[in-house]
């Protein structure tokens, strides 16, 4: 056995991401909070830069002898994913700064876990075999179990068990899903002997059922990560219990990781029927349940379940659906990040998402934040002015129709109508006039201003809102940039 030659350049994104985690750990030991935050920010940026520098056309490394199958494969998709992961990490960090400043979570640990999770995400994108893929997914997810429950309560503050409950829910269901995914991978391996993605092929012959079952279990296991129905029960509860920035990360980065992992599988193995069923169930149930939500984060959670359904619809096409699904996922995470960022900005530091009614009139008090949230909601609904969301929907529908899945395109489009119902309800609430109160009030607007003070928006959160909005607008006007990057 000869030593493998390793192309370290193509591993740069991984080095940067993992290095960031280590750096953060060290910085936490020796320096203060600011340095830790700076380190993570710098690390995130470095990871993105590395991913761009390495690009998507380099040859893979860690290749099996005999050529072909490599475990680390730079691809355009991987590069884009790495940049997005890095961006999301920095964004979520920005969102957490007010609550970190308040001390609701230990800064060092928080940042380290976030960096670790980012590393996992980067790995998923570049993964060339099932082992790397699953390890990547686990690395992405494991820190999140902790992040969800990582909530310190100030002395005197009412202790809530919500984060811990959320954490345990997420953990248990996620672990089971991992076990299922692993079982699937193992069965597939047992039937076909393939672990490298390049060697994955649909099985024929007497062992085909075993392989098929393996593929199905693998897809089901990974579908947990994107919270596909009926494997979604954890998501709303977990989002609700988690601190807002972590919920943002869960619904963006974690979901993107799941999408990438699923894409890697369905692009090579036939799971069309299963994925289509999952897609239809996911978007329909997600949208329907979202209609009845009265809490902001739950609404976002259910809506993001529905959005995952659209992505799954594209993935049901197999290989041709990967690029549209990835494009959709990128548009989606940007818009979702805006939504969460605005929610963070509108709530006091460390607070949860609160009921929808708490946002009544918020758009009139903070016009810019309101406008951003409307942009995000419109985009998620697939309507202008959220052009990014519109193009996302068109991309998916285009791909579906192009591949003779018109019926699925129809389901997607019809679901967009249901989706609009709750997005528009939430958006309208932002601009609703003050509620009439029982007692006679001279000026309800004044009363409202007194009871709903306009909270100062932390600079970091504001920056995230602005940056994410700018990215969304830019992508809205120049989506071709993304398509080019992915293709």
């Amino acid at each position, binding site marked *: 056995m000869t030593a493998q030659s390793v192309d370290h350049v193509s591993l740069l994104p991984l080095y940067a991401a993992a290095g960031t985690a280590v750096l953060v750990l060290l910085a936490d030991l020796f320096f203060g909070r600011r340095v830790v935050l700076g380190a993570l920010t710098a690390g995130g940026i470095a990871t993105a830069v590395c991913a761009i520098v390495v690009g998507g056309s380099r040859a893979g490394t860690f290749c099996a002898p005999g050529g072909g199958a490599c475990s680390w494969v730079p691809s355009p998709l991987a590069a884009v994913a790495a940049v997005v992961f890095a961006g999301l990490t920095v964004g979520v960090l920005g969102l957490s700064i007010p609550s970190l400043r308040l001390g609701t979570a230990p800064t060092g640990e928080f940042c380290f876990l976030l960096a670790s999770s980012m590393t996992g995400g980067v790995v998923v994108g570049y993964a060339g075999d099932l082992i790397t893929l699953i390890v990547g997914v686990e690395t992405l997810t494991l820190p999140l179990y902790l992040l969800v429950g990582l909530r310190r309560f100030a002395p005197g503050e009412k202790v809530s068990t919500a984060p811990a409950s959320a954490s345990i829910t997420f953990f248990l269901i996620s672990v089971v899903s991992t076990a299922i995914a692993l079982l699937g991978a193992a069965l597939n391996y047992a039937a076909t002997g393939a672990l490298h993605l390049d060697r994955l092929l649909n099985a024929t012959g007497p062992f085909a059922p075993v392989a098929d079952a393996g593929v199905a279990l693998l897809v089901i296991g990974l579908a947990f990560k994107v919270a596909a129905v009926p494997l979604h029960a954890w998501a709303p509860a977990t989002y609700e219990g988690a601190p807002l920035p972590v919920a943002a990360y869960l619904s963006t980065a974690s979901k993107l990781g799941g999408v990438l992992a699923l894409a890697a599988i369905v692009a090579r193995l036939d799971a069309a029927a299963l994925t289509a069923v999952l897609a239809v169930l996911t978007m329909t149930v997600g949208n329907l349940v979202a209609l009845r939500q009265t809490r902001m984060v739950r609404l976002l959670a259910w809506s993001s379940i529905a959005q995952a359904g659209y992505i799954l619809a594209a993935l049901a096409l197999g290989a041709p659906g990967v690029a549209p699904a990835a494009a959709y996922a990128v548009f989606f995470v940007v818009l979702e990040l805006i939504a969460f960022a605005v929610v963070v900005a509108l709530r006091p530091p460390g607070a949860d998402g609160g009921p929808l009614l708490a946002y009544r009139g918020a758009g009139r008090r903070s016009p810019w934040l309101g406008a951003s949230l409307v942009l995000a909601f419109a985009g998620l609904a697939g309507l*202008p002015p959220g052009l990014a969301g519109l193009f996302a929907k*068109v*991309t998916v*529908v*285009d791909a579906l*129709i192009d591949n003779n899945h*018109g019926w699925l395109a129809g389901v997607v*489009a019809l679901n967009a109508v249901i989706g*609009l119902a709750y997005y528009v309800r939430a958006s309208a609430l932002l601009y609703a006039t003050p509620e009439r109160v029982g007692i006679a009030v001279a000026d309800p607007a004044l009363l409202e201003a007194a009871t709903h003070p306009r909270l100062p928006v932390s600079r970091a959160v504001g920056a995230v809102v602005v940056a994410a909005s700018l990215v969304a607008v830019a992508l809205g006007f120049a989506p071709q940039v993304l398509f080019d990057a992915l293709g």
Partner: protein
Amino acid sequence: MTIYQVALVAVVLLPAVGAGVVAVFPARLDRAARITGTAFAAVTLLPIILLPFARQAGWTAYTASPGALRPWTEVDVSWVPALHLDFHLGVDGVSYPLVALTGLLTVLCAAYSLKGPGRALIALLLVLEAGIAGTFLSFDLILFFLFFEVVLLPMYAVIAGWGGDDRRRAARKFVLYTLFGSVFLLLGVVTVAVSAGTADLRELTGGAGLDRTTQYAAFTLLAIAFAVKAPLWPLHTWLPDAHTQAPTVGSVILAGVLLKMGTYGLIRVAVGVTPQGAEKAAPVLGILAAAAIVAGSLICLRQTELKRLIAYSSVGHMGFVLLGIATLTTTGLQAALIGNVAHGLITGLLFFLAGAIKDRAHTGELADLGGLRETAPRLAGVLGFAAIASLGLPGLAGFWGEAFAVVAAIQRGGGLWTTLAVLAAIGGALTAAYFLRLLRRVTHGPAAAPVSPVIAGREWLAWAPLAALILAVGLAPALVTGALP
């Protein structure tokens, strides 16, 4: 880039920029913001006026044959090749009258809102103008879809923000129902674009590159989409609610130009791109159109609320337009185009007047109104004019579209189309019935609520151009179809 191309882009861009500018004005400069917005709307008229000078040949009589689409001027910039999306704008005789109507109504509405409820409304009006004008000017199917969608949320905001008591529900119904229609548009447009490999209307017109089956499927999808927007009976129920609850300017824009996106789309996209599908589905469309005419008129006979009645009258009038389109004859299509513009002018005026009446009497219930010609004779006079124009009096704008839709149906010949023509003509008589009922309740009879006879300057400003144009188009329909034979 010629001056005409600049003008073409400016028609879409100016209102959009105007909306942005108005939106960033601080609250204390509200009045300045409103004036600025109105100025933007007015300035947008300049490029619109400029556009007809761009044409070299005639005013293009529209036909759905390959190469029939000859724009006066066009702009074509690649935007998102991955989605077949080009920023391709163009204008010709089919779209120009509607663009001009859009520009005009927006200015009138903006001016009308100068003394109204805030700058956000004017900003939304400008967004609507950009979206509607963009829809009419799009020469790319995906771009068409994009602009088609632009108007949804602003219109929702206009209804939900400034509407009547039940505005939330009406606005929701509007936005969800029309988005439901857009679903079919999206599917249809993408089907066409994917099958033909291009979304360029110039290449697609005439059904080039689409086989028969695709045309059938695509036409069905597109026709449903536009039928919701137009709206064609029985897909119309969003309209009365939206109109009843919308503020005056919202109703004006909604009836005046927003509905035209449906009929325009039917002519330009559905019939233009999938002529074989249109040929196949024409009888169904015709039957539904005749049903819309008769049903709309009959329902109007039972309405008790002013704006709701006018809203339902739109169902009937758009039925005439759709009947004209369904005949697929040149006469019918041209009648539809005139009918489109005429309905925009007349119903726009009617809604302005309904708004004026509701502002004064604080009710729109026909039972509570009455004697307007005693209390406010001028208002009653203009209302009478608008109502008579709306019931299709020859010599006024409404006549051409309705009469020649009937003529076209007879021209098409055969038992079915003749029956439809007869039904449509009967519907015309019923139209007279309900408008006379309206006038009788509102203007005749004993004076009910005290109504101020004073008519504000902004009201004259809004009404006069519309009334003048109704008469002008009535006397010279060539204003819409082009002066040249």
